[in-house]
C-alpha cells in the first residue's frame, strides 16, 4: 500500500508539472500576448517595453517558465484585470461558496441516486426501473444553465417559494468562521442564518445535481445488477440471512467500487457546472468569478482558476484511487 501511494504521488507530481507546461504554452499563445491584454490600445512603445521588462518577458523562455512555476507554487497568479485584487485572494474568498454548493449538490445526487439506482436494479424491468433509467438519460441531456434558469423563473419568480439570488437574504448579520454558511450558522448558534443559507442553496443545488444524480443512478443500477448475480449473494440468500444484511454487507459493499470512482470524477466536473449555475443565481462563488473572467477576457484570472481546479481534480482522483484500498481488500493485497 505504501509503495502504491508513493508511486501515485510521483505520478501526481509529473501530471502537475505537465499541466504547468500546458498552461504556460496556453498563456504564451493568447492573442496579442500579455502586454496587449494589460495595456490600453493606445499605449506607447516605451510603456510596452517597460511592461515587458517588469513581467520578465525579455528573459529567455526557460527562465520565464521557471518564474511561472515558481509563482504558481506560491499561489501568486497576479492580479485580476477586472477587479485589480490578487487572484489568489479572489479565489480564496469565493471558494467556500462553491464548496458549499458542490457539497449540497453532491448530497442530493448521492442521497437520491444510490437508493434510486439500487431500487431500479432490484426491480429490473418494472415501471420504476424504466422511470429511473429514462429520467437519468434525460438528466444528462438538459443544458444545466437552462434548467437553473427555469427553476429560478418558476419557483423563485413566479411562485415566490424560494429566493432568486445570492447566498443570504439582504441585511442579515452573520459571523464568518469557515465561509460555509450553513455550517457556520450551526456552530455559532445563528440558526436563522443557517436556515436562510439552506433556503438559498436549494435551487442552485438541485440544478447542479442534475447531471451527477443521473450518472450515479445509472452507475449504481449497473453495478448492483453486476453484483446481485454473483454466487456469494445467492449463497447469502440461501443461508437465510436477513435482506438488510445481504444488502449492506454483500451487495452494496461490492457495488460501491465503481460508484466511488464515479463520485470522485463527478466532484471535479461539478466545478465546471458551478460556473453555469452560479452565474444564473449570482451565487458569488468561484463560478460567478469565472463567468465574469470569461466574458471580460480576464486571462490571468482564468489561468489561476484552471490551475487551482486542475490541482483539485488531480488530488481527488488520487484520493479515489487510494480509497480503493479501503473499499476493496483485493487491491491492498495485490499492491
Amino acid at each position, binding site marked *: 500500500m505504501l509503495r502504491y501511494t508513493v508511486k501515485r504521488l510521483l505520478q501526481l507530481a*509529473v*501530471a502537475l508539472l505537465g499541466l504547468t507546461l500546458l498552461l504556460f504554452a496556453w498563456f504564451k499563445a493568447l*492573442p496579442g500576448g500579455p502586454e496587449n491584454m494589460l495595456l490600453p490600445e493606445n499605449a506607447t512603445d516605451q510603456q510596452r517595453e517597460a511592461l515587458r521588462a517588469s513581467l520578465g518577458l525579455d528573459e529567455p523562455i526557460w527562465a520565464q517558465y521557471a518564474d511561472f512555476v515558481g509563482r504558481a507554487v506560491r499561489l501568486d497568479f497576479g492580479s485580476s484585470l477586472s477587479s485589480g485584487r490578487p487572484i489568489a485572494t479572489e479565489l480564496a474568498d469565493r471558494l467556500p461558496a462553491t464548496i458549499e454548493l458542490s457539497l449540497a449538490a453532491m448530497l442530493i445526487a448521492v442521497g437520491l441516486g444510490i437508493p434510486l439506482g439500487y431500487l431500479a436494479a432490484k426491480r429490473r424491468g418494472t415501471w420504476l426501473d424504466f422511470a429511473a433509467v429514462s429520467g437519468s*438519460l434525460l438528466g444528462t441531456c438538459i*443544458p444545466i444553465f437552462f434548467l437553473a434558469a427555469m427553476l429560478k423563473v418558476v419557483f423563485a*419568480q413566479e411562485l415566490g417559494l424560494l429566493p432568486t439570488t445570492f447566498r443570504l437574504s439582504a441585511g442579515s448579520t452573520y459571523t464568518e468562521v469557515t465561509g460555509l454558511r450553513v455550517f457556520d450558522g450551526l456552530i455559532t448558534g445563528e440558526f436563522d442564518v443557517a436556515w436562510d443559507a439552506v433556503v438559498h442553496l436549494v435551487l442552485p443545488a438541485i440544478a447542479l445535481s442534475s447531471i451527477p444524480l443521473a450518472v450515479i443512478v445509472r452507475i449504481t443500477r449497473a453495478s448492483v445488477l453486476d453484483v446481485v448475480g454473483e454466487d456469494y449473494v445467492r449463497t447469502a440468500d440461501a443461508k437465510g440471512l436477513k435482506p438488510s444484511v445481504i444488502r449492506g454487507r454483500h451487495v452494496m459493499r461490492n457495488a460501491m467500487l465503481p460508484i466511488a470512482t464515479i463520485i470522485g470524477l463527478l466532484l471535479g466536473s461539478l466545478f465546471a457546472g458551478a460556473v453555469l449555475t452560479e452565474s444564473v443565481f449570482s451565487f458569488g462563488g468561484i463560478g460567478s468569478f469565472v463567468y465574469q473572467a470569461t466574458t471580460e477576457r480576464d*486571462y490571468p484570472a482564468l489561468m489561476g482558476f484552471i490551475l487551482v481546479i486542475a490541482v483539485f481534480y488531480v488530488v481527488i*482522483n488520487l484520493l479515489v484511487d487510494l480509497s480503493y484500498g479501503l473499499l476493496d481488500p483485493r487491491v491492498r493485497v495485490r499492491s
Partner: protein
Amino acid sequence: MTIARIEKLDRLIEASVSAREAQTGSLLRQSLRRLKRSPMAVTGGVIVGLFVVVAVLGPFIAPYDPTAQTWGKEVFLNRNIFPGPRAENWFGLDHLGRDMFSRMIVGARQTLLVGIVATLIGFVAGAALGGVAAAAGTFGGRWGERVEAVIMRTVDVALAIPMLLLALSVAALLGPSLSTVMIAVGVAQIPIFARLLRGSMLAQAHSDYVLAAISLGVPKGRIVVSHILPNSLGPVIVQATLVLATAIIEAAALSYLGLGNPDPGSPEWGTMLADAQRFLSGAPQLAIYPAVGIIVTALGFTLLGEAMRESLDPRLRRQE
C-alpha cells in the same frame, strides 16, 4: 420409439440448427439485428433520423426567412413582450421580430453541423494520437514505448482538466465565434477518444489473428491499419455518437458564456437558447423551443449510442 416422438425430436433438432444459424453471420450483422429489436435504439434512431431530415430540408420547408425582422407595434423590445404562438407564426416571434418556427427549422442544420464538426475534430485528432500511441507501443520497440508514454501522459494531463474548462481555454485563444465553439468542444474531446482507441487497439494487439499475421510475415504497418484498426473502432464509434449529444449541449453552454457568435447569420439552437436567457421571465417560450430541440436531439443521440454500446458488449451478448 413412436412416430410422434421421432417427429418431435426432428423438430427440436431443426430448431437448434436454425438457432445456430441465427447466431452466425458477422459480429456487425449480429449487432445490427440486436439493435433493430431494442426499443432504445429504435426511439433514438427515429429522433436522429427526423432531426437529420429537418437539418437537410430546413431552408426549403421553413415558412419564412429566419432572418427577416418584423418591426412595428408588435415587438416591444424594451418591455420584453413578444407575440406568442398564433396562426401565422406557430411559435411566435423572437426579440427581433423573427419567426421562431422558421428559425427552429433552419437552425437544425447549424446545430447538427456544430455537433458533427466538434465530434469529428475530437474523433480524428484523438484517434490519431491514440492510434499512434498504441501502434508505437506495440511494434515500435524501445523508442516506440517512449513515444507512447509521452503521448499518453500528455493525454492524462489534459484529462485532468474538466471538459468545460478545456473548452473555455481554447475559446479564450480563438476569440468568440461559432467555429471557436466547435473547435473548443472538439478539442476537449480529444483525450477521451485517444484513451479509448488506444485501449481498444491494445486489447486487439494480443489476439490470435494478430499473432497469425505476424508469423505470416505481414508488414507491421499493414497489421495495424488493416487488421487491428478496423476491429478496434467499435467502441470509438459508439463514443462518437454519445459525444455528438454532449457536443450540442456543451456548445450551448459556451454560447451562454458569451464565447459563441452572439447573432450569427443563420440561426443555431445553442445560440438561440443562450440569447433567450435575457428574456426568460417575460418570454420563456423563446428559450423553451430551442431547449426542447436540444434536449430531444441530445436524447436521441444518447439513446442510439447507449443501445449501440449494449449491442456491442460481449457480456450482454452471452445473456441472450
